[in-house]
């Protein structure tokens, strides 16, 4: 860049960094796919194994089911993958439909906070059940 237009000491790359597409878009896109792939087997487990315990089991049967180390670990993995995937997906939906900047940022903040809190509470609950059993 020896032409006259480029007078600044800052290189064109440095000037472009942080502008436009050079943000966290790729990481968002990639993590949505990573969690989606993890959720294929986990959702099949959830639909054919966990929902029976959720929809129909008595207290004792549900406790017994979730005290199994296999189901406890799968439940924790399912909770993390689902809520991470949900936070990523809801962010895109909010960005598409909420145009007021302050409301958009507040909504995304709320979604991330709710998903994180939901995940922590769920994992703590699974551990409580494991300790009871």
């Amino acid at each position, binding site marked *: 860049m020896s032409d006259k237009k480029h007078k600044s000491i800052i290189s064109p790359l440095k000037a472009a960094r942080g502008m436009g597409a050079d943000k966290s878009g790729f990481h968002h896109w990639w993590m949505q796919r990573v969690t*989606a792939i993890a959720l*294929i087997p986990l959702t099949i487990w959830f639909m054919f194994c966990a929902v*029976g315990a*959720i929809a129909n089991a008595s207290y004792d049967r549900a406790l017994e089911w979730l005290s199994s180390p296999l189901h406890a670990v799968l439940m924790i993995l399912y909770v993390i993958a689902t809520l991470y995937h949900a936070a990523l997906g809801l962010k895109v939906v909010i960005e598409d439909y909420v145009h007021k900047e302050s409301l958009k940022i507040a909504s995304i903040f709320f979604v991330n906070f709710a998903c994180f809190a939901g995940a922590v509470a769920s994992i703590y609950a699974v*551990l*409580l*059940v494991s300790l009871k059993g």
Partner: protein
Amino acid sequence: MEKKERPLSPHLGIYKPQLTSVTSILHRITGVGLAFGTGIFIWFLIALGWSENCFDCFHYFITSFAGRLVIFFWMLGMAYHLVNGIRHLIWDMGYGFKIEDANKSAIVVFIISIIVAVSSVCVAY
């Protein structure tokens, strides 16, 4: 900044619904629905970890008619988002972009997701 009256491109509403656009918006609707659905298993887990009384309250709701309806539509949405999500991942790998292929895979998604949802509800009860 001054807001200028510029011409807008036509809004989505004027287009005739197509299989591709319907499956796309359904993916988004079921996704948002499932995000709210996480409240059910979070409630289940917390109630189970907390106390028997707390769980009885959850159990009373989920075994009621409304609760069973919730479970059915939850599973329908989950099955659809799962199967159509796999369709999206196949697109991400670069396959199935021809319009006739996308229309065919849309039908396949509808059929498989109904089968998956109904069988999961049957297994649960």
